[in-house]
């Protein structure tokens, strides 16, 4: 089993590739890997409960950890109570933790 951290920085309302990236997370999880999706910048727009957040909730139910950068959430006035099920606010420190631990950290 490998460990992956997928940093998602793109707004799903602007980029169809954002959805493809979540499919990659699902595939990696289905192959038995440990996967975290870290939403940052406009990537957190998917974290607000909406039509675009269903994919994140679905991923979470499959065992993918879904984190959203607290700073990016504050910048966009997205409050914790507005987050979709399965999404947890997090500090960016987690990404540094994962780099230091030798996980595969990928940016999109």
């Amino acid at each position, binding site marked *: 089993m490998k460990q992956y951290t997928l940093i998602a920085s793109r707004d799903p309302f602007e980029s169809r590739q954002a959805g493809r990236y979540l499919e990659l997370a699902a595939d990696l999880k289905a192959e038995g890997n440990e996967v975290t999706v870290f939403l940052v910048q406009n990537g957190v727009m998917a974290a607000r409960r909406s039509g675009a957040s269903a994919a994140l909730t679905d991923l979470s139910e499959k065992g993918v950890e879904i984190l959203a950068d607290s700073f990016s959430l504050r910048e966009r006035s997205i409050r914790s109570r507005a987050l979709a099920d399965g999404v947890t606010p997090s500090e*960016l420190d987690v990404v540094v933790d994962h780099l230091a631990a030798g996980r595969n950290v990928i*940016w999109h």
Partner: protein
Amino acid sequence: MSKKITISIMDGPFENARTVTALRLVDIAARRGYDITVFAYEGAAALAFARQMPHANAVHGRDADEEDHPVPREWVASLLATAKANGGSVDWINCGLCVDERGVNEAVEGTRRGTPGDLWKAAEASDGTLVIGSK
């Protein structure tokens, strides 16, 4: 033993939130005393350009001091100092070809020229590497 991480960035200054996020990551690692390599590629080679100048804001009637416009070279210098103060280091490498292409040869003290080969070596020696592309 100190942790080693490598981060490669490509965006030029004043252009994209990716730069802010990348520098936030470097800041976190610097405060932990990590040994960090930053490979500034393409437009990012101008982040440490020493002749960046803060400017006034004529529209709002503010002079340069009042405007206090941020310049990335100061952020780069601050990151180097933060790492050193915490027992770590930042090896900030500006891609030499990228620097020459843009005429940004004068970089802040503590940074250096390098090649993509340096990125590979740093990645080989690091616990983790993150490449932040421009698209």
